[in-house]
Structures are given as structure tokens and as C-alpha cells.
């Protein structure tokens, strides 16, 4: 394998990997605040891209993306208010089925609104044949946009959780809801906020990746599964670990193309998911005892 090919694979892996990481982080945010695994997480990514593409018909690109992100955040809040909020201590099974149902509804709605076709946002810089030289490989500048924007999001999130009051409130909810309520934190609003935040980062990732990966009504499911894999691989609940895990998954997937036909690529990431679930469900970085204490 030449250096150039190696770099191509590596960069492709990092690009996809950081997107999986963002979806995984979205899972973690909602899981940390509510204990729910939101199967509809991938749909937020799809909606971000699709909405931005539609809005771009009337708005300049940056505004279209901004508006799309805000719209999807509102949809995230709507999902929480309509379906999650008034449930009275639902069982895990019920939550799983409900979020699956939500994901299906969003997907089918997208199908009827935008059709089956594949679409994409225009490249932020240049067009499909513009390339830059990175690590000996020639890649589209969009790749740098993806990695850059996602990295900024991750950084922003960790600062948010560590240093802002809202962020700390959400952490409090994650650790102990009862105690948080007693401190005057409105746990209900925290839950809505967590949905909005997850939806927002997913949407932005969806916009920024659209020129390279294209957007279609059904990309949500695959992303959700990979995002879940990443969240588990990193140890459910830990966002930094999700980034590492995401990059790992992306790179493994990317390099696997050199040994396995492309059509089987998805099977590889799912096999990885199954392997983790069977042998190390607390993930690479998670703590076994702590994971055992978490309620499912």
C-alpha cells in the first residue's frame, strides 16, 4: 500500500469516524440525562442535511445551514414533548420501541416530503473536483470542513458541560435526578434541552457531511446503528471516549474496503457491534462495575 493510498483511507476513516462520533455523542447526551437510548438519533442528521438543502433554494448557504440546525433542534424538542415527556417511568422495552417508531415516522415523513432521491448541499469551498494535499493524499477541502466543524462541536460541548451553568445542570441531572430536582433544577427542561442539543449537533454534522456523503431519506438508520456502536465502544455516557471510538470505527471501516467488497462494509461495523456487546459491553474505556450499576 502506498503512502498516498494509506492517507486516503486514513482521512476517509477520520471523516466518517468523526461523524459517527457526533452521533454517538448525541446518544450519550440524551442517555446521560434520561437513561433513554434515542434510536431516532440518526434521523436528526438526515433532517439537518435535507432541510438545509431545501432552504438553500431561498437562502444563502450559511443561513440555510443555520436555519436548518435551528429547525431540527425544534423538531428534537417537539419529539421530546410529544412522545417522551409525559411517560410515567416507562420500561426500557417501551422506550426502545417508541424511539424506533419515532425514527420510522420521521423517515417516512422525509420520504414523502423529499422523495427517494439522493441530494446534497454544494461544497462549501470549490466544487467536486477541487482538492487539497493533506498527508500525501489529495482530498476535497470539504473533508477539512467536516473534521474542523465536528472538532469544534466536540470542544464546544466539553466546555459547555464543564464551565457553563446550563451544562453543569445537565451533568447534575445525569448523576442523580432526584438530587437535581431538590436543588431546584427543572429536570424536565433539562431533558428537553438534551434532546435539542443532540438534535442540533446531529443536524450540523448532517449539513457539513452532505457534499461528500450525500443525503437520502434513509441514511438515518445506518448512522444510528454506527453511532450506537460508537457510544457503546467508548463506554456509554462518556463523550471523549466516543470520539476516540468513532475515529476507530471509521478507520477500521475505511481500511476494510481494501480487504472486503464494499457491499459488505456495513456488515463489518455491525459485526463489531455484536462483538463488543458479547465480549465487552462496557466498552473499551468504560468501567465494568460502573457499567453494571447503570440502569438499562
Amino acid at each position, binding site marked *: 500500500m502506498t503512502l498516498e493510498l494509506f492517507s486516503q483511507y486514513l482521512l476517509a476513516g477520520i471523516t466518517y469516524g468523526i461523524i459517527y462520533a457526533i452521533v454517538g455523542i448525541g446518544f450519550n447526551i440524551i442517555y446521560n440525562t434520561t437513561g433513554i*437510548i434515542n434510536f431516532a438519533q440518526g434521523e436528526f442528521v438526515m433532517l439537518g442535511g435535507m432541510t438545509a438543502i431545501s432552504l438553500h433554494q431561498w437562502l444563502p448557504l450559511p443561513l440555510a445551514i443555520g436555519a436548518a440546525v435551528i429547525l431540527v433542534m425544534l423538531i428534537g424538542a417537539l419529539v421530546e414533548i410529544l*412522545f417522551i*415527556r*409525559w*411517560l*410515567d417511568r*416507562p*420500561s*426500557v*422495552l*417501551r422506550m*426502545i*420501541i*417508541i424511539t*424506533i*417508531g*419515532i*425514527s*420510522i*415516522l420521521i423517515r*417516512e*415523513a422525509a*420520504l*414523502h416530503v423529499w422523495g427517494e432521491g439522493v441530494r446534497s448541499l454544494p461544497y462549501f469551498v470549490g466544487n467536486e473536483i477541487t482538492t487539497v494535499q493533506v498527508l500525501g493524499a489529495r482530498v476535497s477541502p470539504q473533508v477539512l470542513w467536516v473534521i474542523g466543524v465536528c472538532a469544534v462541536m466536540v470542544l464546544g460541548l466539553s466546555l459547555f458541560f464543564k464551565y457553563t451553568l446550563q451544562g453543569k445542570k445537565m451533568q447534575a441531572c445525569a448523576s442523580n435526578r432526584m438530587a437535581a*430536582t431538590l436543588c431546584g433544577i427543572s*429536570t*424536565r427542561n433539562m431533558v428537553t434541552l438534551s434532546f435539542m442539543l443532540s438534535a442540533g449537533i446531529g443536524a450540523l454534522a448532517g449539513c457539513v457531511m452532505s457534499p461528500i456523503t450525500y443525503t437520502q431519506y434513509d441514511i438515518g*438508520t445506518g448512522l444510528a*446503528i454506527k453511532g*450506537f456502536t460508537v457510544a*457503546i465502544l467508548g463506554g456509554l455516557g462518556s463523550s471523549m471516549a466516543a470520539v476516540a471510538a468513532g475515529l476507530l470505527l471509521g478507520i477500521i471501516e475505511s481500511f476494510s474496503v481494501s480487504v472486503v*467488497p464494499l*457491499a*459488505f462494509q*456495513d*456488515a463489518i461495523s*455491525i*459485526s463489531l*457491534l*455484536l462483538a463488543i*456487546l*458479547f465480549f465487552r*459491553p462496557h466498552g473499551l474505556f468504560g468501567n465494568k462495575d460502573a457499567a453494571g450499576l447503570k440502569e*438499562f
Partner: protein
Amino acid sequence: MTRHLPLSLLILAVIAVQLLTRWTETAYYLTPLTMTAYYSLVIVGLCLLMGYAGQISLGHAGFFGIGGYLSAMLTTKDLMAFKENALIALCDKLGLLVHGQDMLGVSSLQMQPWAACICAILVTIAVAYAIGIPVLKLKGHYLAMATLGFGIIVYRLALASPLFGEADGISGVPGFPLLPGLAVSGDFSSRISNYYLAWGMLAFVMWLLGNLIHSRVGRALRAIHGAEAATNAMGIDTARYKLNTFVLSAVLASIAGIFLTHYNGGIGPSEAGIMKSVRYVAIVAIGGMANLWGALVMGALLNIMSLRGMFGTYDDAVFGAILIIIMLFAPQGLLGISLSATVKRIFRRGE
């Protein structure tokens, strides 16, 4: 015995419907009805697993796919090129293969449908045990995701593999002769006998499962669902029971796949896809998780409507919506709803 009342009603209803179609000359309804019976096999097996043993499976269409695709592939793949191979020659000697002729008159060699059926079931059992042992150790989200993952792997393999016809699936699957004069196939002439065969199988399975639920094993399953750790401490090997129930439900799904494939003369990757798995779960949920007959009735209704195209392009959306609505308002299934309790719940201030 009131326990056998639903079964008798089912048999009567099946006969009545057939006579009705003859009377109103709507015999074309028999086809979706027959298909519904086979889909119901998957559903009642899943009901046993989810409702009684308490294990969710989001990938059950995968087992349907294994059964259907294997029997399709084995009965259509021409083994003529491998005639000299020792294994193939042995199969031939044992009478497992059928010598035929393709369209151009060239001799061809395929597997007998019954041999393919047995092969497919054996493979299903092996896969179910292999997957079941690690998967059933998981709980909650992890279990759901693992079963979902399994279903997707089967779907992806079917979609990607030239052996399974890739996106087009496998067609031209021959009929499955069971007895002289009775074959599972889509021939118009055997439409009525196929209808009774399908519903007869389903009735028999309902009888078997009904017995099981009221037996010692059924009690153990309900106990496992109720409180697994305590049940383990009562001397019940909960892991083995969950596994056996999983395999049983997998075999039922697989048999449904085999028979439906022969009936339809083919199979496509969507039969093993997520949407089908979700559909099965939705029907079990709406029928009432631990309600075998509820699942059967709702399944029959919804599948008929779907197969007759009543949902149009909103087919998948309908099942998704059903899933949400049932889980939000009636987690015990339609038969467990109390309207006033539901209304109270909506308007009560939450936490």
C-alpha cells in the same frame, strides 16, 4: 374446555371465509390470506418470545430470511457443474436431488424441496443457538441492538451476495410437494388447498403453543419474565429456557419463510429487512405482548390490509405509527386499554 374455544373458532372462521370467497367469487382474496397465515407463524413465535419469555427481538425477519433464502437457493441453484463432487454425489445417491431440465433442455441438478427445507431448518437452529447464547445474556437496549444487528447482517448478506441474487432476490422457486396431490406453490389450481394447508399449519402451531403456555414450561417462562433472578434461585435454568424459546421462535419464523417462498415462487431481501422485523414487533405489541390470540387476530387484520395495498405508500409509516401509539397509550395491547386512565395520564403533571 374453554381453552379450546378460540381454536375451534379459528377453524370455523377459516372455513367460513373460504366458503364466503367462493360464494362472492372473490377467490383472489385467498392469496393474501394464505400469505397472512404464514406471516402469522412468525408473529405467534415472536409473541411467545417477547410476551412470555420477555425477550425482545428486533431481527426476527432475519430468521424468516434464512429459511426462505436457503430453501430458495438450494432448490434453484444448478449443481450440475459440481456433479463430480463427492458430497453432491452422495446427496444424489440418497435421493436428495432432483434431475430436471432447464428452459433450453439442458439437464440440471437441484436439491429436492423437502431436503432443502430440512437443511434450512437445521441451519436456522444452528444459527439461533449460536446467536442466542451470547445475545440472551444481554438486557434492555443491548439486547435490542444485538438482535437488530443480527437482522441487519442477514439482510446485508442477502443484498450483497450474488449467491442470493443481490437486490433482485431469488425467483423461479419450484413448488414444494408435501403429499401426492398437495404441493406448496402458487398455482391457481391449488389455491384452495394451499389456503387450507397454511391455516391448518397455523392452527396446529396455535394448539402446540397454547399447550406449551399452560404447561410447566409456560409457567417457567412467565416466571422468568416476572422476576428472573428469583426464578433462577428456584432451580430453573433461566438461560437455557430463554435460549430454547428463542430457538423455537426462530424455527417458526424460518418455516414460515420456507413455505412462503415456495408459495410465492421467490424471495427478496426486503423480507429479511428491518421494516419487516419492526412490523412483527408492532403486531405483537398491538395484540398484547403476552396474548397469543390477540397477536394472531391483529396480525391477520393488519397483514391482510397491508397486502391488499390499503395503506398505499404509507405502509411502513402505518406500522411505525401503530408502534408508537400502542406503546404510548396501551402498552398492554389494545385489549388492555382503559380510556379514563389514559386521559388522566396525558393531563397529569409529570415529574
